[in-house]
């Protein structure tokens, strides 16, 4: 049985038409199930946890990328399959999972191509895409075997499962989400070395990549860490990979 979680913003009248088309399509494909809407008195986590307790094996997030995160956070670690129906014009996860937008996503659901994907775990929180850390004099203890020291400012540090996608920056690479590794990436800022007008302006920005199973991040002073663009934590933290933690219905044009 399918459980459809409708995010809060779908209560707006402008989404009535697309939701109606989705419900019609799911009916035609035999994917009908229970629909629950997120409302003022109903917390998203409670709705999804209740659905899992009731025995629903397919939890479908209907909404945007934030809606998918809400479902993923609760469903991780349970024996359920997660699906996604992206609503609107653009969605990073729709592109990553190879799922078309709006009612066409129902066809992807009906084909049930399932991938077991890794998650990252930071302290007690699961994250799906990645972590962003201010790389000011941090040290990384990787796999309890070696230590990486980041020198100098202007660097950006990420620990990626599939990649860090900000709202305004979609030009990020997508990493392998079922290889059992997290990719620790240090972006070095380009150096501006133009002393004379005939010299070239900047060296190209470069990056360092360390595939790890476990990394301990420490800094001289507590540093902010943003997980999945939402949850904020502070160092020191231990980040590990949770192998094949979620089952996800994906499309044939997926990037992972």
């Amino acid at each position, binding site marked *: 049985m399918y459980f459809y979680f409708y995010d809060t913003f779908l209560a707006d009248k402008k989404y009535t038409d697309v939701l109606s088309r989705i419900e019609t399509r799911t009916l035609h494909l035999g994917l009908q199930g229970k629909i629950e809407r997120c409302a003022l008195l109903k917390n998203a986590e409670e709705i999804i946890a209740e659905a899992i307790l009731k025995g629903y094996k397919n939890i479908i997030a209907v909404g945007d990328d934030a809606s998918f995160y809400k479902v993923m956070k609760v469903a991780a670690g349970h024996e359920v399959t997660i699906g996604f129906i992206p609503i609107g014009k653009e969605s990073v996860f729709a592109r990553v999972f190879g799922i078309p937008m709006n009612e066409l996503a129902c066809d992807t659901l009906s084909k049930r191509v399932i991938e077991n994907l890794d998650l990252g775990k930071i302290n007690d929180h699961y994250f799906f895409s990645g972590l962003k850390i201010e790389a000011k004099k941090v040290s990384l203890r990787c796999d309890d075997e070696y230590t990486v020291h*980041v020198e100098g400012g202007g660097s950006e540090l990420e620990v990626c499962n599939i990649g860090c996608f900000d709202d305004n920056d979609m030009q990020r690479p997508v990493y392998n989400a079922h290889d059992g590794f997290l990719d620790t990436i240090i972006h070095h800022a380009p150096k501006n070395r133009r002393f004379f007008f005939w010299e070239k302006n900047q060296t190209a920005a470069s990056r360092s990549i360390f595939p790890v199973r476990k990394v301990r991040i420490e800094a001289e002073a507590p540093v902010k860490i943003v997980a999945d663009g939402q949850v904020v934590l502070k160092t020191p933290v231990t980040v590990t990979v949770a192998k094949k933690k979620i089952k996800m219905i994906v499309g044939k044009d997926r990037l992972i």
Partner: protein
Amino acid sequence: MFKTKIHDEVPAQTQTLIGPGITVEGNFTGAGDVTIQGSLVGTLQTTKNVHIGPQAKVSADITAKDILIEGSVSGNVKCYGTLHLKSTATVEGNMETNVIAVELGAQVKGKCVSGIGDVMPEELPAKGDHREKNGVKNKEVLKR
């Protein structure tokens, strides 16, 4: 009108990149190809290839399949494929390799033994092996 574009730069296999300004200390076991442009102190082992850039400084014993050295290495080098020393390479330590190629200008202080064979010992941890699924390599699984 404005299409979301995501770079499909998924590496076909795990690779490790140590960029300039980065110092790694400890026993580094790479899961695939390793490229060093910064500093490494300790040991370096991988079943794949190692590339040491011209500005890199490595104080470590290195064991790998093919090794290309353009920078400074202080430690013993064991190569089960081809050990290539570029003109800017400086190696202080003993080298054991299957095949060696040395460019004019490379500096070596130590013994060199070639023809050791191309079969890597089993005790070298092969982190990359589990990434193959049912005999199909990941670069075939990953799709654009």
